[in-house]
Structure formats: C-alpha cells, structure tokens
C-alpha cells in the first residue's frame, strides 16, 4: 500500500507522510478484508488519521500526482481525468469558524470501494479539511486554536484600551506556551515577543515627554513622540493581524523570534 511515494505530499515531513500512508491509500484498496478496516464515520477517520500529526502539515496537496501520471507538474488534468460523482471537498468551505454557525452534517460517507485507483487526493472529504479535524476533537469550532486566537483578538482590542487588554493576552500566552504543540507554541512566543517590543516602544515614546521642557526642541520631540507611537501601534496591530490570519489557516509562524511582519 505504501509503496507509492508519488501520491504523498513531497513537501510534508517524512514521519507524517509515513503515518498518512494508510489514509491516503484507502480508496485504492480492493480486498474485502482491508475494506473492513476502514473506519465508519469520517469524523472517526479524521481523528484517527490526524491524531499524531502536526496540524500545520494538514494543508491540501497542491499537486496531487497519482502514479499513472508521468510527472507531477499537471494538477488540472488529474482532476479532469477522474471526475467523481461525490465531490464533498467542493462543498466543504476552506475557511470556517465559530462565526459561521454550526457545521452541517450533510457530508456524504466515504465510499468503501473506491471506483478508480486514480482518484485524486483532493477529492477525499478529509484531505485538507482542517475544521473537520478540530471539530472531531472538540465541539468548539476553533478547537485547540481557541486560546491563541483569543490572545490575538485581545491584542487587536488593546489599542482601544491603551494597551491594557494586551496584559491578559500575554499572561495566557505564558501559561499555555509550555503545554501547546510546537506549531502553536510558536504563535505564543510570537505574541510574547510582540508584547514586550511594544512595551519598549511605548516607553521610548513616553520618554521623549521629559525633553519637552527644553525650549526650541519641544516641537521636534512632540513630532518624534507621535511618530514613534504611531509606527509602534501600526507594527503591533499588523503583527497581531498577520498572526491571527496564519493561525486561522492552521499555519505556524515561520520564525517566531523574528521582529518583522
């Protein structure tokens, strides 16, 4: 079954690829004994499949290349060559959230006998469906991402509260940083470093107040104060915005210790 390396995502990690092998090849099996081993509900299958897999590795395969194709450089002809009557991957929205209401349970069951070995991976209902993973783990739509998302939203709220709302965010980040999975701990580190950098920027801006008594340079320091504060707030908000959008897509922060956007 796993002797088909072409169907695996070449960009995914090696250990996750080896664990993903039984799931990715399920529609290909034809003997009845192995068909019995396929889990009944797609939720079960999802939870079992993604149990030990890092969540950021759940991106859909950008180039599904079955073995019949000589080169993996043509994804569109693959989809056109194997049209399936049940295409639940098209119905499942890519981005879902707690604001989108409860998830509809109209997803059809996976066929137990795959009609074609050339069925591409992206037509499987679970492939790349991050929200099915999270909802299989918990009833909340955000699942494990709820705490880092709350931290990001508190950071986005904090400019209106003069920075006070960022304090519970960084406390939550410190409390959950150790126990979170690695890709989510990167988000926490990113939040903590953003917070402390913003504290330094605010202190630098406030420090210019003490130069305002010095006569003619008062105006210059007033302008400097405003510029530092403006750029600092813009940097803080943009960091939080890009972070929450990466978290929304289930992606890690590439370098949590970098200071850029």
């Amino acid at each position: 079954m796993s002797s088909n390396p072409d169907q695996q995502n070449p960009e995914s990690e090696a250990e996750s690829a080896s664990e993903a092998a039984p799931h990715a090849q399920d529609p290909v099996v034809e003997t009845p004994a192995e068909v019995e081993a396929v889990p009944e509900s797609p939720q079960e299958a999802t939870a079992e499949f993604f149990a030990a897999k890092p969540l950021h590795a759940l991106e859909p395969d950008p180039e599904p290349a079955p073995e019949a194709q000589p080169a993996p450089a043509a994804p569109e002809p693959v989809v056109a060559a194997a049209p399936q009557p049940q295409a639940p991957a098209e119905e499942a929205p890519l981005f879902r959230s707690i604001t989108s209401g409860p998830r509809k349970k109209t997803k059809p069951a996976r066929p137990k006998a795959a009609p074609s070995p050339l069925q591409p991976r992206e037509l499987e209902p679970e492939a790349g469906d991050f929200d099915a993973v999270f909802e299989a783990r918990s009833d909340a739509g955000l699942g494990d991402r709820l705490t880092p998302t709350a931290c990001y939203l508190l950071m986005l709220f904090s400019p209106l509260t003069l920075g006070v709302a960022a304090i519970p965010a960084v406390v939550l980040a410190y409390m959950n940083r150790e126990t979170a999975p690695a890709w989510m701990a990167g988000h926490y580190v990113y939040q903590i470093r953003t917070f402390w950098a913003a504290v330094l920027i605010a202190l630098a801006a406030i420090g210019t107040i003490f130069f305002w008594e010095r006569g003619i340079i008062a105006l210059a320091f007033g302008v400097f104060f405003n510029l530092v504060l403006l750029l600092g707030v813009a940097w803080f908000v943009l960091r939080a915005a890009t972070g929450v959008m990466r978290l929304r897509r289930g992606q890690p922060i590439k370098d949590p210790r970098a200071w850029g956007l």
Partner: protein
Amino acid sequence: MSIDKAALPPESGKTAALVVYVLFLLSLPSIGLLMFLGVIVAYFQRGSATDWVRTHFTHQIKVFWATFWWTALGIVLWLIAIPLYLAFGLGALIHLGIGVAGVILAIWFHLVSLIGILRLVQDRPY
C-alpha cells in the same frame, strides 16, 4: 446672553483662543483628553469674544466635533472588524482602512489647528 458687543475690547478672547489651539495640538500625546478641555474653554469663551475671535472659537468647535465623530466611527468599526478576522480576511482590510483614515484625520486636525494659530496671531479671523 446680554453682552454688549460694542463694549468689548478689540482683542477680547484672543488669549483663550490661543490656549484652545495649544490644547488641540497637545491632544494626541494626551490621548485626546486635552482636546475635550479645549472645546470646553471654547464653548465658555465664545459668547464674550469679539467678532473676529469668535470665528476662531466656532472653527475650533467644528473641528472638535468632526474629529470626535470620525474617531467614534473608527472605534466602532475597529470593534466590528475584530471578530471578522475569524470569518475571512475582511478584518485586516477594515483595520488597514481605519489606520489610513486615522492618519489622514490626525494630519488634517493638526494642519487646521496650525493654520488657526497662524491666523490668530496675525489678528485675522479664521
């Protein structure tokens, strides 16, 4: 108000108008608090000012309310945009627009206050 306008000195209220402009220009470092103080002074001094100074007070009150309501709208939109980060990328778009509009509003506010100061010290109406 029964103030005899003809009996007012020709520069009545000029110092108060200057104070209001300075308070306006210091409002951004003071997170807007000094702007409220300035408009209170403007409301109290408007009645007892000569005609050309009263145009400055009227102008300051207009600038205050324009800034106030645009800022209030920006805050409300900011709060609305926060949960939209979870739905799709619209939250970032709204926050970006609020940031650009806020910078434009701040530049307009400071420019208008500076122009007012320059005209006031030259004894010209706004």
